[in-house]
């Protein structure tokens, strides 16, 4: 075998320069520059105007609705995502591949189509909405509807994060646990759960972030009533851009807050994940 590299710091695998170059330019053109311009726009407002805008009751309510519903949806997704991943990894059954494929549909389906379909299904004369209505639950045009839409778009994040980890988890670990006299519950708690904790957090965080910023699938089912507090943040942003006098600065300011919140959450989840993975690998 040849020596790893003639000069110190030289990467062995060829093509580092060009792939890195493409990576950096893509990231800049597609992500960093647009994000910077969001900031630039919102900084056109005076700090006073900025604070006044984001503390308006309508805006605060929208943030509460978006974050609250996205959180509940992410928790639901975390629970059922683990279950789905478990079923898909651990059992063999007819139609397994089909179900596995279906998981990704929410990624592929245009969100507006999902939103319109969900609304139709869950409105009080839709197929599922009728049944819920009978037990006294109104789904469409309430926060429940928003949560349903967010569960729909968030579920693949959790399932796809956990699946590969579960697949790699050797059965022998569980068998060893069993041999040493652990109950099934203990095996799950002490062996399986610590392993899937980091990817679960990743999936949870992604589903949460996606839910908070979601527009297309939520907008039809939410009813957008300021009175019933079913306006989400992305709707408020669209209001600013659509209405009679376009308010770029206001829209950018709200978007900036949204970005910061998502960033903090993803950051926090990364820290927790980091700590968790350190503990399990130690």
């Amino acid at each position: 075998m040849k020596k790893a590299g003639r000069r110190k710091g030289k990467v062995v695998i060829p093509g580092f320069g060009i792939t890195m170059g493409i990576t950096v330019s893509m990231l800049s053109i597609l992500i960093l520059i647009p994000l910077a311009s969001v900031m630039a726009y919102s900084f056109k407002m005076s700090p006073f105007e900025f604070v006044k805008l984001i503390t308006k009751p309508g805006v605060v309510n929208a943030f509460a609705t978006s974050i609250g519903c996205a959180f509940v949806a992410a928790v639901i997704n975390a629970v059922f995502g683990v279950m789905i991943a478990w079923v898909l990894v651990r059992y063999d059954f007819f139609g397994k591949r089909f179900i596995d494929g279906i998981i990704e549909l929410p990624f592929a389906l245009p969100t507006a189509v999902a939103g319109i379909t969900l609304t139709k299904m869950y409105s009080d004369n839709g197929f599922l909405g009728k049944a819920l209505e009978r037990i006294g639950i109104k789904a469409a045009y309430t926060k429940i509807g928003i949560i349903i839409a967010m569960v729909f778009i968030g579920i693949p994040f959790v399932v796809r994060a956990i699946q590969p980890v579960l697949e790699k988890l050797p059965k022998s670990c569980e068998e060893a646990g069993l041999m040493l006299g652990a109950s099934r519950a203990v095996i799950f708690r002490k062996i399986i759960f610590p392993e899937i904790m980091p990817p679960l957090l990743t999936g949870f965080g992604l589903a949460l972030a996606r839910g908070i910023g979601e527009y297309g699938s939520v907008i039809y089912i939410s009813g957008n009533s300021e009175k019933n507090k079913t306006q989400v943040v992305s709707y408020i942003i669209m209001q600013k851009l659509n209405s009679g006098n376009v308010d770029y600065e206001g829209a950018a300011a709200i978007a900036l807050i949204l970005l910061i919140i998502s960033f903090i959450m993803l950051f926090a989840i990364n820290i927790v994940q980091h700590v968790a993975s350190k503990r399990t690998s130690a």
Partner: protein
Amino acid sequence: MNKGKYFAGKVTAILLTVVLSMGIFTGCGGSNEGQDSGSITITNVSYDPTRELYTAYNELFAAHYKEETGKDIEIVQSHGGSGSQARSVIEGNDADVVTLALAHDITSIEDAGMIDAGWLDEFPSNSSPYTSTIVFLVRSGNEKGIHDWDDLIKDGIEVITPDPKSSGGACWNFLAAWDYADKKYNGDEELMKDFVAKLYNNVIVMDSGARGATTTFVENGQGDVLLAWENEALLALEQYPGEYEIVTPSISILAEPSVAIVDENVEKNNTADVAKEYLEYLYTDDAQRIIGENYYRPSNETILNEFADTFDLSVNLCTIDDFGGWDKAYADFFADGAIFDEIYQQ
């Protein structure tokens, strides 16, 4: 290491980058339009509910143009919310003509320097070849007995109308209600605010746009009454015969969707003449009839009267001028903290 292979890989990578970025740039550049080639293409940027109208009109115009000049013409249609369509033109959508819901949206393109001042008088009837108004769409039989604006504020009536803060069309609904209250209470502003507050308290779903509201009412079966554009309401009658009825209130508002040539773009595309002809032809008898058939009120009085069976011509219509023009109306009613916020956030 195989140096030749490495080099080849590098070249491929560079080529790929160049090709990809060329793809991106040509994609952004848009197509070349103009009159230099055999067939002509012009782009008409319009708003949502005119889709059917312009599909029919474009066919008529293409036939007329072929007959007159012997050339084929292709008209690219673009539809969306009126405000966001105007924004797209300002930001570079290569529209030759705009046919939007509100004069205000065209003014915003004018303010961006792309349309010359005075466009409102360039074509007849304030550059509005067709008008429309707000009516009520109710379920067949009208069991709740909805006949006028008064009935909408009763307890237990569920109203569907889009959000005026995100839909231009919804602003007209609000203004029509306001005008009714104005006449009912002789301009007593407190009572008028009360009236619209009650009305909006009965709104159970507030969609972001007019089409969304129609879907909520028609497809999802929500609410007792939809405040709708007359053309949308008539279209719903046609598509679902026997399921709905139109109720024309005693007072409504005359909406004048405006058309204009985007001067900056036609100059660049060399399409000034054909764009002008495209819009002028909207005022011919044939086109006015197509307009009527698509449930817009033709601006030509004679032809409007031909459609007296379709439209209720007795309705008392106020106009945006009664509110001091669109800019003033927007600031008074729909800006942050204005009357709509005041009555709705109570």
